[in-house]
């Protein structure tokens, strides 16, 4: 096999998450948002940087280079993930009951088999399914029902952090809202922290406290979710917003999208600012230097040279 280059899916991503918080991650395909999710649950290894995990007693562990024996079991119980494709995320050869039991048995939550059975039935009804469905196999269920099963599996060990990787994008529109509501309800009841990954800005807004906008493996803007919508600052965020159809046939907006071209290949990323080849405001410096994130208002960070300029100029003016 010939190596043409190594894909740097994640350039530089800094953020932290605390309990009961939801961080939304939004971006287009290939921006590295799924890689980020998989790196956080430790099924991909990062090449650099660090991931720090705080166990329930507040003790901190550096888990960047793999899980040590000491922390493995608590981490695997504490951090769970829901995947994008419900047709792919359940083992076709296992019954629903066995699927949900897998994490429970792996972490030996119950000694008594009767309690264990009762718990599985409880979980099924909690996610809105008939408890008797446990005997059946995945192929008997629709996409929405399968996603409910996947949710039941991931919350069975009572994780503190749930990573949702595009949990609704493979579902029919009329079913999407059901799953979003269910996730919200579960978060309220269990005080979980969520990392919600999606390409759909509306859905991310609905779920999240903070939103990170990613482009080619970089976070280009991060802010509380309202600030992102009310005051999108990075040119990419602005373009992304303008591309969402607004469901009003009297106000068509397709012609107003100013974003030209397509995201470059992550194997061969552009120099400087990753967005500069498509940016309508690009300047000379953009191709040369990568912009650092700047705080433009409380908790609102944006990585764009344009911002530096306005701040610099306002400083020099003042």
């Amino acid at each position: 096999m010939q190596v043409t280059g190594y894909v740097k899916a994640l350039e530089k991503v800094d953020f932290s998450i605390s309990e009961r918080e939801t961080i939304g991650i939004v971006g287009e395909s290939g921006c590295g948002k799924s890689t980020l999710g998989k790196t956080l649950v430790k099924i991909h290894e990062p090449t650099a940087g660090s991931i720090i995990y705080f166990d329930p007693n507040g003790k901190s562990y550096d888990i960047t280079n793999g899980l040590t024996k000491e922390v493995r079991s608590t981490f695997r119980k504490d951090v769970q993930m829901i995947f994008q494709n419900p047709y792919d995320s359940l083992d076709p050869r296992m019954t629903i009951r066995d699927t949900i039991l897998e994490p429970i048995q792996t972490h030996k939550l119950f000694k008594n088999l009767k309690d264990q059975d009762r718990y599985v039935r409880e979980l099924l009804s909690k996610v809105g399914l008939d408890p008797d469905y446990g005997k059946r196999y995945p192929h008997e269920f629709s996409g929405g029902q399968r996603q409910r099963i996947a949710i039941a599996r991931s919350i069975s060990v009572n994780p503190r952090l749930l990573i949702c990787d595009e949990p609704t994008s493979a579902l029919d529109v009329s079913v999407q809202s059901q799953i979003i509501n269910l996730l919200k309800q579960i978060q309220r009841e269990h005080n979980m922290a969520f990392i919600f990954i999606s390409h759909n800005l509306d859905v991310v807004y609905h779920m999240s406290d903070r939103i990170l906008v990613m482009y080619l493996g970089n976070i280009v803007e991060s802010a509380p979710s309202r600030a992102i919508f009310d005051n999108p600052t990075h040119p990419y965020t602005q373009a992304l917003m303008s591309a969402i159809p607004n469901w009003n046939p009297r106000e068509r907006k397709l012609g107003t999208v100013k974003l030209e071209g397509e995201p470059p290949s992550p194997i061969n990323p552009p120099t400087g600012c990753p967005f500069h080849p498509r940016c309508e405001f690009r300047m000379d410096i953009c191709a040369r230097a990568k912009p650092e994130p700047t705080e433009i208002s409380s908790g609102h960070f944006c990585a764009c040279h344009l911002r530096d300029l306005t701040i610099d100029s306002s400083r020099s003016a003042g």
Partner: protein
Amino acid sequence: MESTKKRVMQSFFKHRLGVFGLIVLIIMYLLVIFADFIAPYNFATTHTNFVYGKPSKISYRDRDGKWIGPHIYEMKKSRDPITYQVIFTQDTSKIVPIKFFVRGEEYKFLGLFKSDLHLFGVEQTPDRAMLLLFGADRFGRDVFSRVLVGGRVSMTVGLLGTFLSVFIGAIVGALSGFYGGKIDILIQRFIELLRSFPRIPLWLALAVIVPPSWPSTWVYFGIVTVLSLIGWMGVARVIRGLVLSLKEKEFVLAARVIGVSDMKLVTKHLIPNTLSYLIVVSTLSIPGMILGESSISFLGLGIKEPMTSWGLLLKQAQSLSELEAHPWLMIPGIFIMVAVLSFNFVGDALRDAVDPYRTVEKL
């Protein structure tokens, strides 16, 4: 998986050749299992009066054209007055009727208990008349009986050998695909190395290791081992490919996030999901095993007398002059062909049913 099973069954039974092959195989296995009982003679008993005996001609009517049921005639031995060669002529005055459930030569049924009851045959002693469906060999042994008994080796070598090679192949393939990296490269290069050897010399080289002093059952298992030591490589490749694609499936990722151990991941998720492919691969690799055993025995390095197999039976038909004089010695070859074809038909039908997109290559 109820509906999948149903779909696979339906699709299989639509495949006419596959169903035909399956029926043929069932019949062949029944013949082979009850070989001693079905065969009219003990496969190892020699009959000096019938050395190279021709296949018997079965008649149904007497000299006046009256229907008297299937029968053969006694043989009269005489010498050619000029060449002094022994010749047999039919003594049409002595009718020997063919009957069901006759007492004949003694055998041990499935090696368990003694019996002398045969499904069919003649009541006359074998020095005067023999019912030879496929003729006799140079020791006067009934080829038909020998084909049935020899089928035991040939038809089970494939099954056992495949079982063993699929077992080894599945484990090695799953490890190679699952761990990837250095382990994978090592295993793959090793397989390539082994596969780049020509097959027959490799079989022979391995078969030579089996000591000639071993009893025939040991030799039999020796041959099975030799065959599966080579056969597992194809299986390992297929399973590696499947595991490579399966391990990126979200249900496997989900299990990893849960913290399921690698061992359980392989045995609970990966291998069960390759099961249907394993069945197809197994069926398709049986013919190779059958041919392999035949080749080894044909070349004289496999099963030894008094045990027999189709390949060993064919060994007698090695020379052209032999073939010209006694063409019936080729009959075991037809059995090999029919068995191999039937397994191929069944394998193809199974593959079409389980794997309509042909992800598994023929081995």
